[in-house]
């Protein structure tokens, strides 16, 4: 029985991504005629039609699995190979890749982990995955010319208040419920992973400077100031917000924050 190309591709897609493997996928497959898979795929002396599809099924999973291991090294380290493998198996069923670039294959992993049973043992794992994803997103965020100290110095200080600025596209702000930054840091530095991180509210700033992604915990005043700047605002409004968040030390705080943001290429001029 001849099938059109679309039907053939849909059958193969279902078999290759079948959650329990090609054999079980075949048992559930209704679009195959009495010839079964042999009616679609030719058999050979060394490999059956099912063996052949199985090669693609294996390649599908492991290609994405290997990419996600690279993208989420701390999540992998915390969970271990077996739990991470099982996590990704479930993730690909729930969130099969739709983007043309494999870079985005893991973009929903943190969302998936949030409700996964593994969070009972590792309640911070979704925040850790979210931080790792943010580093990737920051790494490939659009380019923009950062504001420099020289540019700021060239502007009349009286005009600073009305100077409009926004955060660089690579600056991402994450509110975590667990203190996951030290977990990631331990992994990067080859140290033993800390015991379960503290819970609470942890503002994390992610940025890309000189084409490398960085992250750190921030003070709330800085985090909220950057949240304001993300939408594009005036320097005067940032000063007002910091002033309201700090008690009597706002000038020093603002000067310190501004120096840091400029040094880290976190601000761009806003039209």
């Amino acid at each position, binding site marked *: 029985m001849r099938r059109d190309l679309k039907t053939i*591709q849909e059958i193969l*897609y279902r078999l*290759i991504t079948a959650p329990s493997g090609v054999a079980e996928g075949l048992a559930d497959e209704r679009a195959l005629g009495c010839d079964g898979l042999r009616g679609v795929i*030719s058999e050979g002396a060394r*490999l059956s039609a099912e063996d052949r599809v199985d090669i693609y099924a294996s390649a*599908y999973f492991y290609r*994405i699995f290997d990419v996600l291991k690279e993208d989420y090294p701390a999540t992998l380290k915390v969970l271990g190979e077996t739990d991470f493998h099982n996590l990704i198996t479930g993730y690909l069923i729930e969130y099969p890749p739709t983007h*043309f670039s494999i870079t985005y294959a893991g973009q929903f992993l943190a969302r998936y982990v949030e409700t996964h049973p593994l969070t009972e043992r590792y309640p911070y794992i979704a925040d850790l995955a979210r931080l790792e994803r943010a580093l990737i997103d920051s790494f490939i965020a659009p380019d923009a010319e950062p504001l420099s100290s020289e540019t700021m110095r060239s502007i009349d200080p009286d005009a600073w208040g009305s100077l409009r600025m926004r955060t660089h596209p690579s600056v991402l702000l994450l509110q975590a419920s667990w203190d996951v930054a030290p977990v990631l840091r331990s992994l990067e530095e080859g140290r033993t992973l800390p015991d379960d991180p503290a819970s609470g509210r942890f503002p994390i700033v992610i940025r890309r400077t000189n084409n490398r992604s960085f992250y750190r915990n921030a003070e709330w005043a800085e985090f909220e100031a950057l949240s304001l700047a993300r939408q594009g605002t005036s320097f005067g409004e940032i000063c007002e917000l910091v002033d309201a968040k700090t008690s009597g030390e706002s000038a020093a705080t603002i000067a310190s924050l501004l120096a840091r943001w400029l040094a880290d290429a976190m601000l761009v001029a806003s039209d």
Partner: protein
Amino acid sequence: MDASEFPFLGFGVGLRRDHYLHVLENRPDMDWFEIISENFMIDGGRPLEVLGAVRETYPIVAHGVSMSLGSTDPLNREHLGRLRELARRFKPAWISDHLCWTGVGGRNLHDLLPLPYTEEVVRHVAGRIREVQDFLERRIAIENVSSYMTFSDSRMTEWDFLSAVASEADCGILLDINNIFVSAFNQDFDARAYIDAVACDRVVQFHLAGHSDHGRYLLDTHDHPVRDEVWELYAYAVRRFGSISTLIEWDDNIPAFEVLAETADKARCIHDETVRTKADRDATRSENDSGNSLSAHHRA
């Protein structure tokens, strides 16, 4: 097909992240680099900066893995738009992708799956290639993939299918010698018959890579040195197609850059030797032929 659209670039290697720093700091002696297009179809960051710096010194070719020319889904306009933008910015010598499908129903398998070899599929894929070429305003090259299955509905050989698609779409062929070798083993055909039969005037580039031997089948893994049998097949292809831009692919277990450079040099040596031998043989044959015709003339 205008050959000037696919000039002979010499012998290159794939530009991979592991070698960014080495390439930028040492500017090694290399004819050209091939990039995986999708790795650079991003908004910003280091990969684009690196590519800009590499492009200052070297020609590049943009080789994609996600165009899904054989899919029954509509062509992905975001993909094509980003590819066109990449091409405008970095001016690759040409653009290539695979004769395959990578997904259906809006979902992506991130793999290169083969197609049934039928006239109907030839028309389907060729139409989509023409659409891509119109969008990109340039001719592209399509690559034969390694395959682990063939379809019961197929009515022609892979090489006839590849040639027919290239002819109907009026595009170039990127002939992956390792893929021919791998598929020949997996599908029980003669690799040399493939090379003998594929449309000669369409072949614009070669790929060479390593593969893994799994006993009952070969897997195109790009994680080993090029096997001796593939080198022999490459020499055979050079004898038929002549001087064709050649690229070494190595995507996993990536060795030091010097190993890739040595592999590209080996391809150059095989090419040079093969072309020289062929020229000598042709010259000898030509002399013999003219001697024969002279004799014939005298006899007349």
